[in-house]
Structures are given as C-alpha cells and as structure tokens.
C-alpha cells in the first residue's frame, strides 16, 4: 500500500498542483482536498499519512500571511489535527503553508502546559521581508543537523527558489535558543558563498530571517515548514542554469518528498 498524502487547498492556494505532482513522483497516493471538505467531514483526515499545506495566498493573506487558514484549522479541525500529530504522522508546510504552521503554533511546536493541555499558541512569526517587497529568486540552502524526517540523509547544500513577501523568520531570543538546542533548524540560507556587506546576508538570505533560518521542524522532526519551494525543483530543467551546467536529471527538491513517503511507507502503512 502506498502512503496517502492530503494536499490541502482553500481559496488562494496556488502551489497545490505541483506539490501534488511532487508527492506522486515520490511514490505516494495523493488527493487535493478543499478544507471545506475536511470541515464538513466529507473527507476524513485520519485516512491520510501525510498532510501537505502548499504555497499560495490563502484567503488573500488578508490581515497577515496564512493567518486566516491557521485560525480555521485551529478552530474547526483541532481535534482531527491533534490526533493526526499524536498518531506520529507527517505535516509539511511550504511557503504559505509554513506561514500557516507557524501561526497555528504547530511550529516550532506544541507546548504542554502545567495542567497537561496542549497549548497551541504562536511563538514565532514570518514577517515582511527586510527588502519590503515580494521577491522571487533561487537560494543556496545549508542543511543542518536535525531530527527532521523530511531531510534525513539529504545532501548538505540544496538549491531552491523562494518567492514571497513575508518570509522573514523571527522569534524571541529564548525561542531561537530553544530551536538551536533542540536542533530544530532544518535549513539555513547560505552564509558562505558571498562576502556579505556588514551584517546583511542579502540576497543569500533573501528576507532577513533571524539566524538565516529558512526552515524548521518540531522536536519530533515530523512537522516541517520551509519558505523555499522544493516542489519547484523536481527535474533539472527547473534549474536556472541547466543550459550551462552539468546536472543530474533529478532536481534537489524531490528528495524531501521521497523521504516523507519512505518514512510513511515504513512506519505508518500496514504491511500488505
């Protein structure tokens, strides 16, 4: 049995088709599901092994990026989501999806309060880029040592495109320290290839994120969010320099989806 991936859609989602293709190429069964169909229980989240929240401008990013979808998920899908997480299943949020995960509090992670309740609060944010505008460019990523199942065994440098206006990851110092100590930082923007002027690492760090953070996971490594778009680098033709460089046929992004599918396959799917 192949793992089942739910690619979540709502008004303004726009990277759903290529995210769907990425998981199919990685060997999964996929379904594009509108959030209304989860809320109305027409579709049962528990029949899936991986939840993908793709990029886009959910509800126009009104108020702030991802916030309305996050509120909807927290208030209308809370128990289904909590069960999904408790069952050890995987969640990935890409770009707008990462913004949603941060605003739900699923990233950097749920805190258990003194009375034993799971406290889903937002503890970090993705703010307006320091360049104050939407930017689309390719970035070099440094893979960090982390428990993230999506990046296990992945190469140390990845090249992926970003395209966003609100991608500057920022959090209070104690949260950043926590992320460091629990190795929750999965990707950082490249800090080596160019000599940056002053403190700025622009455009290598395209949005001014704290500690050059491009992607983080929760402490289990099963919930992962990132600003760059791995689903936009599936074949070598996506690479901006494929006409001048000798590249493998497969793009850097596919390994992330394959890792997720392999993990779900080995741990979550009953042996048939």
């Amino acid at each position, binding site marked *: 049995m192949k793992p089942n991936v739910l690619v979540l*859609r709502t*008004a*303004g*989602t*726009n*990277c759903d*088709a*290529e995210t769907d*293709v990425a998981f199919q*190429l990685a060997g999964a069964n996929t379904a594009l599901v*509108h959030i*209304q*169909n989860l809320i109305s229980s027409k579709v049962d989240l528990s029949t899936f092994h991986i939840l993908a929240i793709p*990029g*886009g*401008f959910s*509800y*126009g990013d009104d108020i702030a990026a991802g916030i309305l979808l996050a509120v909807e998920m927290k208030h209308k899908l809370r128990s289904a989501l909590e069960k999904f997480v408790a069952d050890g299943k995987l969640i990935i949020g890409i770009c707008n999806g990462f913004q949603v995960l941060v605003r739900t509090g699923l990233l950097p992670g749920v805190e258990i309060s003194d009375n034993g309740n799971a406290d889903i609060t937002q503890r970090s944010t993705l703010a307006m880029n320091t360049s104050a*505008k*939407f*930017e*689309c*460019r*390719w970035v070099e990523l440094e893979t960090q040592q982390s428990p993230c199942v999506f990046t296990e065994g992945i190469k140390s440098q990845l090249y992926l*495109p970003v*395209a966003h206006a609100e991608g500057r990851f920022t959090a209070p110092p104690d949260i950043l320290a926590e992320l460091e100590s629990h190795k929750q930082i999965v990707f950082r923007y490249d800090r080596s290839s160019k000599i940056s002027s002053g403190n700025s690492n622009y455009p290598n760090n395209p949005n001014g994120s704290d500690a050059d953070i491009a992607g983080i996971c929760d402490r289990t490594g099963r919930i992962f969010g990132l600003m760059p*778009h791995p*689903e*936009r680098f*599936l*074949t070598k*033709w*996506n690479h*901006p*320099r*494929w*006409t*001048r460089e000798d590249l493998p046929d497969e793009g850097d992004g596919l390994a992330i989806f394959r890792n997720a599918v392999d993990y779900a396959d080995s741990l979550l799917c009953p042996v048939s």
Partner: protein
Amino acid sequence: MSSNVNECQILNADDDELMRISREGTLSLNLDEMHAIQAHFAKLQRNPTDVELETIAQTWSEHCVHKTFKSLILYTEDGKDTEKIDGLFPTYIQRATEEINKPWCVSVFVDNAGIIEFDDTYNLVFKVETHNHPSAIEPYGGAGTGIGGVIRDSLGTGLGAKPILNTDVFCFGLPDTPYQELPKGTLHPKRVFKGVVAGVRDYGNRMGIPTANGAILFDTRYTANPLVFCGNVGLIPIDRCDKSVEPGDLVVAVGGRTGRDGIHGATFSSAELDDTSENLGSVVQIGNPIMEKKIVDALLQARDLNLYRSITDCGAGGFSSAVGEMGEDTGAEVHLENVPLKYEGLAPWEIWLSEAQERMVIAVPPENIEKLMQICEAEMVEATVLGNFTNSQRLQVFYEGEIVADLDMQFLHKGLPQHVKKATWSIPQHPEMSSRDEQTEDYTEDLLRLLACPNIASKEHVIRQYDHEVQGGIVVKPLVGIENDGPSDACVLTPIIGNQDAVIVSNGINPKYSDVDPYISAASAIDEALRNIVAVGGSIEKTALLDNFCWGNPDKPDRLGALVRAAKACYDIATAYGTPFISGKDSLYNEYRDTTTGEQRAIPSTLLISAISVLSDVGKVVTMDVKKPGNLIYAVGNTFAELGGSHYFSIHGYIGNNAPIVRTEEGRLTMQRLSSAIDKGLVRSCHDCSEGGIGVAAAEMAFAGGYGLSLNLNTIPTGEKIIYNDFLLFSESNSRFLVEVEPQKQSDFEDHMAEVPIGCLGSVTDNPTFTVIGIDGEQVINTSIGILKSSWQTPLHT
C-alpha cells in the same frame, strides 16, 4: 415607465441634441451612429430606454467592436492616388492568417483568445489586452484589473483554459521627468511605473500564474498616456475548445458581486484623456485576485464534468456585452433583480453595464444546474441564475417584472454603420547623423551609455517582484546566466511537469522606428518577436503572432495613415514568414488634451507583437549567456547602415531616416538555418541583435555568462559597404544574431549555415575583458564585463 428606467428622448432630437446625449452620457457614439439608432427606434415608434441606449453604446464601442479596424478607409500616401481599404482587420490581419492557412491554428479571431495546437491532449490559448486609460488614472487598480481581465479571457475561451503564463509589457514616461514638466492632471511616470508593477505583481502572484515575459519602454510621449499590455497563455483540453448556446440554457453569473465600479469603461476607453480625466475614478474597476482564483478552481472542475455549454467573461460593458454576445444567435432574457449586488441603490442600467471584476457568464443546461451550484458552493464562489437563453433573437432585460430593454439582436450586432475615414501618410524627413569616427577612436563610453538607456537597462528589480516559478514549469527564466541576471530572449515553459513538450513566448516592440515609418516599426516588431523565438531554439514554422496596436486618435488622418502603414507591414511580413495572427486587440485614442491650452499630445504609434511557439524537446533549448572560454562568436545575418530610430542616434539627439527594414527572404532563411543548427546541437548560446545592435548584444552575452569577449568588426557580414566603426557596432538591422560555437563544431556550423551570411568575430575569453578591434585594426572598445554589467544594472535598480 417606472422610476427605475428613463426614456431617452431621441426621436425628435436634432443633431446637436443627439450629440449632447452621446457626450453627456459618456456614450462615445458619433452622429452617424446616433442617426442609425434614431432611425431604428423611429421604426418602432418609441424612444429607447436608458438601458437600451447604454447597451447599444457598449456593444458599438471601439473597445468592443473595433470599428476603426473595420471602417472603410480612404488612404493617400505622399499625395499619390487614393486607395480604398475596406477594413484594416479583414484586409491585412485576417487575410494574412487565411492565406498562411496553418493546420495547427485551431481557432482564430472568433473567441476570447486564439487557440493553437500543443500536444495530443492539450491546445494553447493566448491573448494580450491593454488597460491603458485606467492605468493612467489609477495605476495599481488599472494594471491589476488589466491582468485580471486577460486571465478571464483565457478562462472564457472555448469552455475555459487553465491560465499558465502571464506576460506584461509597459510603456511609461521617462522616470526622471521634472515635476514642473508634467502635463496638467497627470501622474508622475515614477508613480505610474511603481503602481502598475505593483498591480500586476499582486494580481498575478495571488493567482499563482508565473509572469515570465515582458518589456518596459520609456518615452516622454507616454507620460500622459502610459501603455499597459497584459497577456495570458492558457492550457485547454483538445475536446473543450468549442462552445455553443441552446435556447433554454440558463444564464448563470459566477463570481464577484456587482457594484458601481467600472461603469462606462468600454466607452471611456474610446475617448481621449484630458486634464480632468483624473476625476473619473469610478470608471476604473476594483480587483480581487482571490475571487478570480476561486472562479478558476470552480469552473475548471465544472468544465471537466461538462456542466455548461458556453462561457465568456464580463469585461467591457459587463453583463450587457457578455449576455449580448453569447445570445447573439439565439436571444436571451435576463432578470436584473437576480444579480447579487455589493450594495443597494443601483439603477437597472448600472447593474447591466457595471464592469465589476471577477465575473463570468456561463450557459448551463437546466439539468446541470444543481451540480454546478454544488461545485461553486464547495469552492466558496457565488453562482446565480439570471435568466435563460431563448429563441427570440432578442435581448430582453427585465427589472422587478418590468421590461427595461427589448432589443433586436440583429440590430444590436449588425446595425452599426460602417465608418468612412480619411487617412494620409507622408514620409517625414529628419536631420541625418553622420558617423562619429572622425571625432573619436573609442566607443567604450557610447556602449556604456547605451547599456544604461532605460529601454535597454536591466529590469531585474521589476522581474523579481513577479513569481516566475509558480506552477513549476518555467525552464528558461526571464533572467539567465552565471549569476541568474542576464536578459533572456524569450521564456520557455513545460506546462506538464517532467514532460519535454515546451511552449516559447516572446515579444517584439519598437515604437522608436515609428518616427521614421510605422511600416518599418511594425515589420521590425514581428522580426524581433520571431528572432527571440529562434534565439532560444524555436522555429518560425510553428509560431503564431498576436498584434496589439496602441495608437493616437484615428479620427485624425495622419494617425490613421500611420495605422494603415503598420497594418500593411503586418500582412507583408507575416505572410512572407508564414507566421499567422491568431488574436489581437487595438487601443486607440491614446491622446492627451490640455483643456486650457488646447495642446494635444499623441503617443508614438506602438505595435506590440507577441509570439508563441511550440517545441517538442525542451532539452534542445539554448540561452543567451556565453558558456565557455575558447568558444567562437559568430555574427549571423547581414548588417546594413540602418541607424534611423536607433538607440545610438537617440543618445546623440538624432532620429535619422534609415530605419532597419525587414528583408523577409534573407530573414526567413537565416532563422530557418539557425533553428536547425540549434536543433542539431551546434550552438552553445544565441542572442538576437536588437536595441543597440551587435555592441549591446555582445556585451549582454559576455556579462551574463561571466566571461570576456575579444571581437573584431572586420568580419561582420554586411549587406552594403560600411566604413564606420560606430555604424557596424550599433546598427539595428533586423534578422541578425550573435552565436557561440565550440571550436570542434566550427566546420559543422559553417557548413550548416552555408547559404546564410555569417562571420566569426572572435572568441570567449577567460579574462573578464571586453575588447573590440575596429576597421583599421585599432581597438575601439576596451573595458571589463564588470563595468559593462554595472552600467546596465544601475539605472533602474530601485
């Protein structure tokens, strides 16, 4: 008659009164048209209602029926005999396509966009629109709804195409225009520039459509009349390209609610702007891209389930045009009280004409309505039954039980009297500029100045604000090269991820040549668009064109004469190259009048040619950045001393007279052989020579690739003897390319190109210097690629 509807007193009106009614109602109807309407209603022995008169005005507007392009033109050139042209569109555009007769043209000129074949499963649709007048008044809203509108054109073609690519071409006033020189009531070009870019960015990005091809041009004559061209390419299943309407089908509106925004947009765009136009805010529409995204999501599902038989968008003229066009052959009955409104208080004619955005109209067989409603509800889109199509051949509009319009479809669509217009043309004489070889031995400074011209300079600051990666299919991006920042000739996309079938999209535009001759400008725009296709590896054999004319007031014989010249070129060049037009649009009346001084300004005659081509193996594509030191650089195609309208003359204050003509026989052979050489893998990089000629093209290839070039002008193939270095360097002759070839493929390449004039100019160097040897063996350019690149990147950096 109820208080909701007014009767328009035209039956007994004299000519002055008729024109007063037209003017005060922003109807943009001329006296002949008012007479035709008067005569029609005299037969009916009644006055029209406001709803009827407004419906006719929208349907007959320049924007909707393109009456200038269909008018009878009496054309005189240089005082010679008068030529009678029965419609520019049928004579020069449509006829070209018919004569070329390409089997892969699926649908041309009839639907909201042209359709060509792509692969075994899908066809491609392509449409380019302008949104000039709105963008002049409210740049952000005007441009955003411009892109929103053209996306709906793709969605309204056949039974609906999935939008896969946006294009954008802008013409603005000079960014450094002093404020005191601004024409009264106009916005500063910088503000227009910023607003337009933000409008296109926010709409296109939110829709999740890559914006990956375009151009930005500057000329002081665009200050009061900026041009905003927005294009969209869509992908449509082969069996979803036809539409029809059956009597009994429901008229269903899908999408946004109707308000007072955008009323009179169609007729407004058929008038000149003046210094009071800024007060006309209500004619500019308000965009909501997420609404449009929801409509696309819902309707493409409904399309695949065959739930509707026809679809069109509510563009200019709103419901009046959409329902009027769909029901042209049948008849339609609409009940306006069913229309969901943004707020109360709209008169029936306002509901009927509103150009509120993000609305589509579909024809739904009654048995499918329930399923359609379910899909729309699931996607959170409002869908409303407004009425039904009939077999009455009439357009009947009701409001709260009362009939407010009852128009004969035949009169509405065929009753417009053909205009008769005069056109004249005489060739202007401009002061001629001579070579500067006697004054200077070094052209480094000239090259740097050319690279810094706003038309040539890097547009990276704008390009990066557009998401050109979404949908995962853009495989040649607008910026290419070792640092992803060189100017690509065209964009290439693979609509099906992982599939090798590719689409190439490019454009050509050169209004500077219009100052010499609009014929040359139009011919060169076609040649340039095709060169850009060929430069990435496409073939003109599988290329279709779109024409978008932006002109001054065609009621003035000299403006119309220029339009005749350009239309003639479209026919001549398209038929010679075998590249059919599949769609087009015109925006006329791009003039500004200062009501106090009476001063009148027109834009330069501007023809945008967009090209779309299909390529079966994306792996064969090349880009314009040089790849490897030691490789050879060839010039392909003859250079002539053609600097009229060139950027080189322009930076020295001249226009000149010898603008680059298109020699189609040579041009076609050059492009055919080069496409084939690229297909055979004989070419490592290729760049077309356009603004700034060989000098600018070579510099761009070098700094994009990160290597130097060492070139010699003596080996440039020429079609006439040229004895000046600057003319060789900066002539803008058409049908020319620079090509990089590996030394081991030199003889294969030369053999392959045997019938085409080529010359090896030099080679790529590891050393990042850029040197050019002149006619006498002396160095005429010596600089570094870093300096060239910085000169090119700095001007429009912020």
